[in-house]
């Protein structure tokens, strides 16, 4: 009861502080709107047509012609025929950033069911995003082509065998043909006839496949600003000590655990309110700005669990900051470090898969990273609680470590 009185009083004080309210709710919303808009712009820019030189060493071949037709079919790529020497010169003098080489026996190899290789070459000036975009398109078209060819080939063989046999002994019934087609399809998936030699890091392809500007922004900034509540808790404890009210509370018949719980409760409540308000406001406001509303995924329970653990991490961090900081400015400094730097490396501003290996590895030492990963799994990839158990465990671990260290080092005097 006394803990609730302390918590109620702190919330009352917070509600009178317009600056804090703006920082807690309005600033993250502005970040979400701005970054969602920026990421959406990036997506639109990626839809621009990329001109790619092609050296076709199988000119007039049925399969190479089909490949080029498919590449140019509304996939954001426009091919241009080059001679080999001319293309390599263009690559060297940087008038072209990449080129595709179709091998000489492409049609024959594909038709014969032999493996063949398309080559994607790029120069030093090639932008990573363009190379990746072209690679994905070529890989997709090549896979379709080999699958289609294998299916047609297999079915043609069965058709020929059926036509030679008398009706009473025909063994290739409709059922057998279906089984054969499925087998060909599976083989085409696992062993494509046409392969690409270039390869991009896995995290890029994964990220690109799962990208959702609004969901990532909401998850990132809601997590980042949830940790602002920790600063408010630590500052509130410091203010109480400075003003003498902490001493007055300790002189009251109020146990130290009740006092600490009373100081922690508002942080917990605020962090949860922040998440709920930011998600709700994003769902309402982003479509009004012509952007996609964030998805809530398929697991409300998962969202609740992650939100509770983020709030617990933030709350425990507040106690830890109050325990280890010796001055008010140290609270400010450490909180800034945790809010902005940990937010950055944890993937709040820019998705972790874009940050590169180094920052991505550093990011794993902050709770933000795991919270954002969990939200992304739930909201963007549509996964469930079972899929985010590792993230939930790690967040619970962070909360426990922050709390235990904070409690051990907390000074009531």
């Amino acid at each position, binding site marked *: 009861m006394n803990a609730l*009185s302390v918590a109620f009083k702190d919330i*009352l004080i917070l509600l009178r502080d317009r600056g804090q309210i703006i920082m807690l709710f309005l600033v993250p919303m502005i970040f979400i709107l701005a970054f969602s808009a920026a990421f959406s712009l990036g997506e639109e820019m990626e839809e621009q047509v990329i001109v790619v030189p092609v050296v076709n060493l199988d000119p007039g071949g049925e399969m190479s012609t089909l490949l080029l037709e498919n590449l140019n079919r509304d996939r954001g790529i426009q091919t241009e025929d080059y001679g080999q020497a001319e293309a390599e010169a263009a690559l060297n003098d940087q008038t072209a950033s990449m080129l595709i080489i179709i091998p000489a026996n492409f049609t024959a190899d594909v038709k014969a069911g032999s493996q063949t290789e398309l080559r994607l070459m790029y120069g030093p000036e090639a932008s990573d995003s363009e190379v990746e975009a072209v690679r994905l398109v070529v890989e997709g078209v090549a896979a379709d082509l080999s699958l289609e060819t294998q299916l047609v080939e297999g079915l043609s063989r069965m058709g020929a065998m059926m036509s030679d046999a008398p009706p009473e002994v025909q063994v290739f019934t409709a059922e057998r043909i279906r089984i054969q087609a499925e087998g060909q399809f599976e083989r085409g998936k696992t062993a494509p006839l046409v392969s690409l030699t270039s390869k991009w890091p896995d995290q890029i392809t994964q990220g690109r496949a799962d990208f959702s500007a609004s969901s990532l922004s909401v998850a990132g900034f809601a997590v980042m600003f949830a940790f602002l509540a920790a600063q408010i808790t630590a500052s509130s404890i410091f203010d109480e000590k400075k*003003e*003498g009210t902490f001493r*007055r509370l*300790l002189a009251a018949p109020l146990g130290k655990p009740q006092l600490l719980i009373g100081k922690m409760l508002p942080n917990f409540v605020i962090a949860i309110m922040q998440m709920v308000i930011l998600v709700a406001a994003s769902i309402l406001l982003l479509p009004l700005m012509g952007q996609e509303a964030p998805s809530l995924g398929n697991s409300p329970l998962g969202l609740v669990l992650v939100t509770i653990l983020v709030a617990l991490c933030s709350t425990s961090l507040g106690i830890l900051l109050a325990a280890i900081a010796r001055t008010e400015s140290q609270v400010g400094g450490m909180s800034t470090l945790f809010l902005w730097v940990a937010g950055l490396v944890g993937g709040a501003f820019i998705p972790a898969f874009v940050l590169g290996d180094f920052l991505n590895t550093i990011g794993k030492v902050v709770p933000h990273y795991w919270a954002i990963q969990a939200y992304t799994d739930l909201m963007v990839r549509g996964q469930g609680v079972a899929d985010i158990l590792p993230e939930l465990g790690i967040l619970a671990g962070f909360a426990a470590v922050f709390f235990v260290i904070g409690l051990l080092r907390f000074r009531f005097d």
Partner: protein
Amino acid sequence: MSEPILVAQDLKKSFGDLEAVKGISLQIARGEVFGLLGPNGAGKTTTISMLTGLLEPTGGQITVDGLELESHTNEVKAKMGLVPQELALYLTLSARQNLMFFGRIYGLKGKELRQRVDEVLEMIGLSERANDPVKEYSGGMKRRVNIGAGLLHKPEVLFLDEPTVGVDPQSRNAIFESVEALNRAGMSVIYTTHYMEEAQRLCHRVAIVDEGTLIALDTPTALIRSLGGGVVIIGIAEGAPEELTDRIAQVPAVRSAIRSDGELKIETQRLQEGLMGALDITNQLDVRITSLEILEPNLESVFLNLTGKKLRQ
């Protein structure tokens, strides 16, 4: 002395190698206003912190109304009220919100809480402005709310820690009147200050603390009487003869004379006679006087006489 409400026995507190309180024993009677005097750093605040349960003593025992503080912490705390030296208030909240909060943490609720808050607002004269944020109040008004917050639960013992620091004369008088009214209503008050005139006016008994030790404990009148007619401190130049001290001690109006570090401290029965006698003897012995200080009989002089230090150092 009537039955004690608070008993402290051999209280000690150390911070590392520093011994802040070196074994203080006190008994506060019910309905008594008890002054705890001493200069800054004497150990007053540490003693108060131990008596109110804020600091755990390194040694000793505290009982309030027969209950041991260590084993009945919350019950004992409920019997005490603390008015800290700082303005321990939430400045963005109103006086009413502050009082409601402090009342709640002492277990008051509902109608009883609202009624007590109204009574205290009336007592501190802030009913009219009860809903204004405390930050908009004058210094004296804030001090009154600070005291009010310690009274809501009607404590049996009220600790007032330097309540008049930085207060204008008018508010200071209002605080004195409040303390006297509370005491008339039966409340025991422990009042720390380094203003002697406050202790002389308000306190039934006074304890003087210096360097963590209790150096005197009595009524203000008895402590002042112990100075006799007053004390004269004469600075003497090097080479004064040894017989000087003995001859001054034999002057009829002089109680005692002690010589140390180039000074002669003379306690008198009658100040004027004693002073004149001492000056005659210094003339006869041709002793050069380098300084002369006369301590009128009051608590300030008692402290100076006991410690060689001024209270406001």
